[in-house]
Every structure is written in C-alpha cells, then in structure tokens.
C-alpha cells in the first residue's frame, strides 16, 4: 500500500513538473507541448471518436500477430524439443533468424503483402514467434530426469509424456516467454505501422510528425502506453489463472 502511494505521488510530481517546465522554459509547442495541451488533444480525440478506429486497428493487429506468432512458436518449440534430428538440422537456421533484426524485414513484407494489415500482422507474428519458440524449447528439454524416468516406469507413451509431463511442467517457463511476446507484439504492431500502415496508432505518430502536431504525437504515445499496460496486466491475470495449480512451494 505504502509503495503504491509513493508510486502515485511520483507520477503526480512528474505530471506537475512537466506542466510547469513546459510553461516556464519557453520551448515551443513543437518541441515540448504542455501537459494540458496534450490532454486536451487526447480528450477531443477520444470524445469525437477520431482515435478509436486507430486504437481498435492497432489492437487487432497486435492480437492477431500475437496469436499467430505464439501458436507457431509454441508448435515449433514442441517439435524441435521432441526431435533431436530436426533440432540438429534446424538450429543454425534458428540462430541465424534470431539475430536478424526482424523490423529490418518489414520493407520486404510490404513488397510481398502490400501496405496495411497483413504486413503488420506478419511482422508482429514474426517478432512474437521467437520468445515462444525459445522458451518452449528450453522448457521441454529441461524436465527433471527423474520425472522422465517415472513416466518411463509407468509405461507412458511419447504423446502422454509430452502432454502430461513436459508441457505442464514447462508451463511457467513457456508463460515467461509469452509475457515477453506480449510486450514485443505492441512494438511490432506500432513500428510495423510506421513503415507499412495507413491507419493505426503507429501511422498516426508518423502523420503527426508530418503535420508537426506534437500534442497529438504525445497523446498517441499516452494511448500506446495505456494499451500496453492493459495487455500486460491481462497477461499477468491469464498467467495466474493458467498456473493456479502450480502452487509455489518447497519441493522437498
């Protein structure tokens, strides 16, 4: 409780000093718009309905990319984790594709998929793919050997060992990858829109830059931050629900 209070006080202090500084310093509105100007822009954007379609679009792109990327990443992680053969053959390619800055591929995707939603979903999916792949692969390869022997003793099939031991046991690690993917998915969608979007919050930032409308840019940045925090909090709740049975306790 005490920490929350201090945290809130810090936030208030930040807002007040922003407002005061922007008035006293004499910077032009283009460089540092005042908090009140930004909030006024944000308010009118929300009440006139101007911002909502963009928020909706970015949210949809982010969710579609996240779902696609995580699903493919999870499946690939499981397949590579189960098959030593595929892992040996494909691992160098995975490393190589990991080190490519994924956003550098965005222009190529625009050539392939055109401007708009498809390209941005593909970019977002590609960015979300790796944390899920990496964590799933790590999780199902690092199962307690005694538990694996237990399943062998019990005559479990490979599928049973996967579904009833490896995936549940690896779930906390897999979910840690999912959390990273959620944060990255917003980066993917917004930056994807910088490059290949006509609409959406990222495109709005570029547009406001073109119009030299800094209050709008700040307003959009606030919207993106809030959107990210909502998604992150939802992820935490989802994770808590999914891992409700994994009560943390001493194993011995």
């Amino acid at each position: 409780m005490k920490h929350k209070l201090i945290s809130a006080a810090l936030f208030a202090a930040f807002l007040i000093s922003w407002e005061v500084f922007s008035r006293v310093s004499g910077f032009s509105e283009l460089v540092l718009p005042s908090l009140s100007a930004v909030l006024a822009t944000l308010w009118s954007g929300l009440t006139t309905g101007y911002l909502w379609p963009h928020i909706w679009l970015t949210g949809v792109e982010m969710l579609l990319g996240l779902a696609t990327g995580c699903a493919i990443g999870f499946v690939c992680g499981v397949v590579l984790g189960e098959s030593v053969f595929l892992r040996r053959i494909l691992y160098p390619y995975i490393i190589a594709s990991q080190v490519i800055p994924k956003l550098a591929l965005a222009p190529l995707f625009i050539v392939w998929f055109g401007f708009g939603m498809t390209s941005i979903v593909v970019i977002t999916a590609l960015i979300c793919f790796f944390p899920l792949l990496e964590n799933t692969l790590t999780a199902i390869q690092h199962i307690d050997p005694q538990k694996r022997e237990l399943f062998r003793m019990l005559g479990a099939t490979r599928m049973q060992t996967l579904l009833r031991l490896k995936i549940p046991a690896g779930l906390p690690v897999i979910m840690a990858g999912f959390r990273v993917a959620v944060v990255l998915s917003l980066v993917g969608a917004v930056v994807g829109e910088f490059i290949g979007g006509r609409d959406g919050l990222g495109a709005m930032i570029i547009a406001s830059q073109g119009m030299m409308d800094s209050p709008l840019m700040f307003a959009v940045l606030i919207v993106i931050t809030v959107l990210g925090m909502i998604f992150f909090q939802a992820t935490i709740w989802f994770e808590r629900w999914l891992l409700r049975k994994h009560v943390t306790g001493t194993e011995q």
Partner: protein
Amino acid sequence: MDFVSLQKVTHTYRDANGKPELIVDGFDWAIGEGEFHCLVGRSGCGKTTLLKLVAGLLQPDSGSIALQGQPLRDPGEQVGFVFQRPTLLEWLTVAENILLPISLKRKPGPADHEKLESLLALVGLSGLADRNATQLSGGQQSRVAIARALILEPPVLLLDEPFAALDAITREELQDDLLKLFRSRNTTVLFVTHDIREAVYLADRVAVMDRGQLIRDLTIPLPRPRDGEIRYSQGFNDLCADVRHAMDVPA
C-alpha cells in the same frame, strides 16, 4: 524359485566422449518372494544403477535379470519404483498424483478410488487427497510417492534412497510405515540406501556393494515385526558394525 534374480549383471556407462566406465561388475543376487532386501554402499558405488537395471530403465551389457522367472525387458507394471526425491507432479493434487499410474492407462473408476482411499489411510494421509502436492511436508510427499508406487499393486517394489532427505524422526516413522505396508501386502522389496542402520532395521538380507561388485552378503536374523526399540539392542548394533566393517575396503 527366486522372485527376482540377477546373474553376472554388468553395466558400462559411456560418457560424452565414449569413454567406458564399469559401473556394475558381474553382480549376482537373488530375492525370494516376499523378502525385503537392502543394498548398501558408498555414494557412486553403482547401487542406483543396479536398481535401475532391475527396474528395466537401463539394460545390462551382459548377464541377465529375471522377474518371476521371466527375463526382464522393459519397465512394466510388475515393478513399482520410488525415486530419491518424491518426484510428484506439482500441478496435480495428492489424489491425482497417486492415481497417475492408472490414469495414464485409463480413466480411474470407483474401484480405483476405493483403492486410493485405503492406500491414503495406510500411509497416514487420509483427508489430504485434494491438497496440492507441493503443500505437503517432505515426509508426506515421500508417503505420496510410496502410495503412487503401490497403487497398481506391483509384486516387486524398488526404492532408491527414498528417505535420505528427511530428518531422523520422520525417517524412522516412514521406515516403520513401510515395514507395515510390506507385511500387509507380501511385496518383494529391494531398497537402496547408504544408511547402514536403516538397512539393518528394514532388511531380511543386506548386500554391500563397492565399485560395482558385491562384497558382502549378510542375513539379518532379527525377529519381525520390528519396532523402534530394537535399534538400541546389542544384536542390532553388532550387525551394523558388521556391515560397517564390510564397507571399510581400501580405496
């Protein structure tokens, strides 16, 4: 006929570079039906490997292992195994953990739940069936692991230092409960430990192992049923000393 028999069993471990190391070296042993045998030795003497060979988790390089006269191939229902750590699945309840051997084969029915209840009572965990496995104490987790190994009523039970991580009092309680279970079910038991007093207290016969070889075979003539008092008797201590001296081999 011997219930479990090992003849000239040899097992070699190859490390990552393919360098062979002899872990079990020509081991002969036989356990009669319903007998309780203990295998003692220092850490790294190969006793866990030997137990895994008997379980079918590892295959011998040469020699043979037979259960009830049948050569052993793969792990199967006829053997229950209790690991060094309880190895409970943290995301399941106590009941789900104990029923795991059944639920991997079919959906547990009413008869299985009755068996579960009676097993829970036997290991002193009645009323804890719906607890999460990780909410139990170390001793209780070991009890769950034993119940899980017994749910399919295997004729042979193998235990790999199951009580090593527990405090002395809890360990004695579990030893007594294990003896009770053993008496009531006529299970054939092979129990691996490095604790000499534990081995002498539990066993009908003790095998002492060193560097993969059987170096001493000792019959324990103490009367059954045994209780805690016997630990302080002269005969018990003489037997412990006997085992201890057998382990004093020059390195």
